[in-house]
């Protein structure tokens, strides 16, 4: 079999970070080839290099043995490779027909709309896409928009198509229909590269798989002869324990945070959860599993469609953050830069925002009391700062995150919700932050820890694994990476 796509020894750096370090991929003609790897493994960078959006620093890309065209020659690239990106490139205000032929509505002269619609109908029926060419794209659902994107991608004549996490926004039936379509395309001889976090999908639709880890190529193997375990361990690599989790007695105290049949359309369904005092409960799952949505709903950032949240014995009004915080909840948000702190305000002010009312009477804040509280917080969490008056925006990621922790912990919360606490922080800060969670729990709080990092989840007494919006498994302490990832990727339930 001929090789349709070959990328050899690709090196791509973004400033000090190396996104791809001598990685490569070879895809035979007519096969559906999976590319898997954990976040940051370099998959998206490879996509942008294979689609000609970025130039590799080193290495070469070959299409059917020929060197790739120049970066500026967009048409040549589009004739060789088509891509359905994670982010939709459909323009909602325009019709389906115009989206299909965007910027090539006519070869010159005025646009003949009737002819354009006819051409669009022809294209849609060629690829058996059941969508009205005259409809506005905004009236289409997610699945239909994706089909339009696939049809558009193929209409340039490319015989190689990259699908970047196409199932992330689709429900089960739509995924089945997409797979049926992919099989049909494969029978017509189209080569595909398929990126997904769901390994079960890889086994269902792909013939071979390439694994990237930490910007490097780890292995390429036919899917059929590859045991699940081996694939998962290729993705995770050697598990290096950087933080030694402490042991705690079995949690049998009172429930400090609970959810009953909590549902939010498109994010998660019918989730029950109970966190006891002295317990860390982990939430694991892929990006589309709904784990972040669930945690944010517990805090009140989203209003659930149904179900209730109880914090420290108080049933809080759904979707009311102040009520949840007032009931004794501490919260470390997913994106600290956006929701975690006010960059221009000082360490002291950010850390004491929730307890401002305790620092003085009649709305007056006593600077001296704030200062002394801030000094105490800085000491407790070991925040590296010039002092309580330094703006948080000037701190490093890890120290800024500690300020966010300080804010969450300052009022001695009964329940703590922490989302991706160690994202973008160094090893040292990571240990301090995980230690802070365990400290709070030892003081009697109950914590929910959401994380994409398996190492973070080691401090949990149990981990709830979510898959497509449901809690599928309650894993007690002592799991291995293999076990957890297998459940997260939906291989085993």
């Amino acid at each position, binding site marked *: 079999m001929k090789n349709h796509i070959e990328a050899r020894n690709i090196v791509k750096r973004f400033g000090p970070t190396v996104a791809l370090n001598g990685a490569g991929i070879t895809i035979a003609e007519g096969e559906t080839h999976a590319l898997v790897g954990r976040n940051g493994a370099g998959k998206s960078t490879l996509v942008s290099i294979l689609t000609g959006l970025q130039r590799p620093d080193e290495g070469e890309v070959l299409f059917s043995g020929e060197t790739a065209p120049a970066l500026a020659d967009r048409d040549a690239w589009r004739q060789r490779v088509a891509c359905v990106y994670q982010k939709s490139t459909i*323009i909602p*205000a325009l019709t389906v027909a115009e989206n299909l032929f*965007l910027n090539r509505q*006519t070869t010159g002269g005025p646009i003949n709309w009737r002819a354009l619609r006819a051409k669009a109908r022809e294209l849609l029926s060629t690829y058996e896409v*059941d969508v009205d060419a005259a*409809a506005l794209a905004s009236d289409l659902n997610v699945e*239909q928009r994706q089909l339009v994107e696939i049809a558009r991608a193929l209409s340039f004549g490319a015989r190689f198509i990259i699908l970047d996490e196409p199932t992330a926004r689709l429900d089960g039936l739509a995924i089945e229909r997409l797979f049926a379509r992919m099989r049909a395309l494969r029978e017509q001889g189209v080569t595909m590269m398929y990126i997904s976090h769901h390994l079960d999908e890889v086994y269902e639709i792909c013939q071979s798989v390439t694994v990237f880890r930490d910007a490097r190529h780890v292995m390429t193997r036919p899917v059929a002869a590859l045991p699940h375990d081996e694939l998962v361990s290729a993705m995770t690599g050697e598990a290096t324990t950087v933080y030694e989790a402490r042991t705690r007695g079995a949690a049998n105290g009172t429930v400090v945070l609970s959810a009953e049949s909590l549902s939010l359309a498109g994010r998660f369904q019918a989730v029950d959860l109970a966190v006891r005092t002295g317990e860390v409960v982990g939430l694991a799952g892929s990006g589309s599993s709904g784990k972040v949505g669930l945690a944010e709903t517990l805090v009140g950032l989203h209003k659930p469609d149904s179900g209730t949240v109880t914090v420290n014995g108080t049933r809080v009004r759904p979707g009311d953050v102040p009520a949840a915080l007032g009931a004794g909840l501490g919260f470390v948000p997913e994106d600290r830069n956006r929701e975690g702190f006010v960059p221009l305000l000082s360490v002291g002010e950010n850390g004491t925002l929730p307890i401002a009312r305790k620092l003085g009477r009649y709305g007056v804040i006593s600077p001296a009391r704030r200062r002394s509280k801030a000094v105490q917080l800085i000491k407790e969490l070991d925040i590296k700062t010039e002092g309580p008056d330094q703006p948080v925006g000037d701190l490093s990621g890890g120290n800024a995150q500690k300020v966010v922790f300080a804010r969450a912990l300052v009022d001695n919360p009964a329940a703590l919700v922490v989302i991706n606490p160690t994202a973008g922080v160094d090893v040292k800060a990571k240990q301090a932050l995980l230690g802070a969670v365990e400290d709070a729990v030892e003081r009697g709080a109950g914590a929910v820890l959401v994380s994409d990092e398996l190492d973070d989840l080691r401090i949990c007494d149990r981990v709830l694994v979510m898959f497509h919006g449901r809690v599928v498994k309650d894993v007690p302490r002592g799991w291995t990476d293999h076990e957890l990832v297998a459940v997260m990727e939906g291989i085993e339930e």
Partner: protein
Amino acid sequence: MTTLTAPPPRVRLARFRDLTLVPVILILLVVGAFLDPIFLSVGNLTNVLQQQASISLLVLAEALILIAGKFDLSLESTVGMAPAIAVMLVIPASAGGFGLGLPGPLVIPLCLLVGAAIGVFNGFLIIKFQLSAFIVTLAMLIIVHGLQLGPTEGKTLFELPESILYLGSATWFGLPAAIWIAAVLFAAGIAGLAYFRLGRALYAIGGNADAARAAGIRVDRVLWGVFILGGTLAALAGVLETGRLGAIGSNQGVGWIFMVFAAAVIGGVSMDGGKGTILGALTGVLVIGLVQNILTLKGVSGFWQPVVYGCIILIALIISRIAGGKAQD
């Protein structure tokens, strides 16, 4: 092939969305006719159109910029500044000019050039330098007006070259030339945005600039071109206004931008970009022009008219919110 449930009535409705103001215009015509017999006379309606001709060019320019997803407040200052500077380059120092003695026929090309240059500068700051269009053009609104006040020292220019007066005062085929010019430019705008790739590129950029870039549209170049076109149209509006009034006052164009936005928005052009048509914007101008005329004919005090305009904008927004059903940003 079974067609998917994209309900036909909805498609038809979308097609007529540009025309939602047509019934309003008809109502205004009927109401005006009852209120004042002069209203429906050819003379009066011609007058309405002529008065609106120059502001309509600004609406055209703003509609193009809004559809492309950007913003330009500085257009109104260009209306006074571009012709004033062009005239001062031509007329002698004794009449308040710079005394350069450039030939008189050059005044219109110079004026358009000044407008284009303002567009170039706006585009440079907004597209190349990536500054906020709102703040840049707000600053330029002040600067450009200042560039008129400074050289003229706030005085009105009366001694104008013949050539700049012609377009605003001539009559072609029984109608003022300004109406013809506006009509032709609007026709070009309607056709350009509906039937040409460049026009459609504006919708693509305003709707999703990344998708437009991925489709091979040269987003920056198109946007810059739109700003330059906008400045040029504003300068042309200044030429027409100058010809209509026979002088360039220090506040020519001042305060127009509110009406311009009002006309564009009630005409269905989205402030978020990617939506609206030139025809819709035109109906917006006509509505505002007719209301203005009726209020003047009925002797409503000029001091009270702003209240009426403001209310019309709000009512139009409420109607389109109810008809469109979607929350507006």
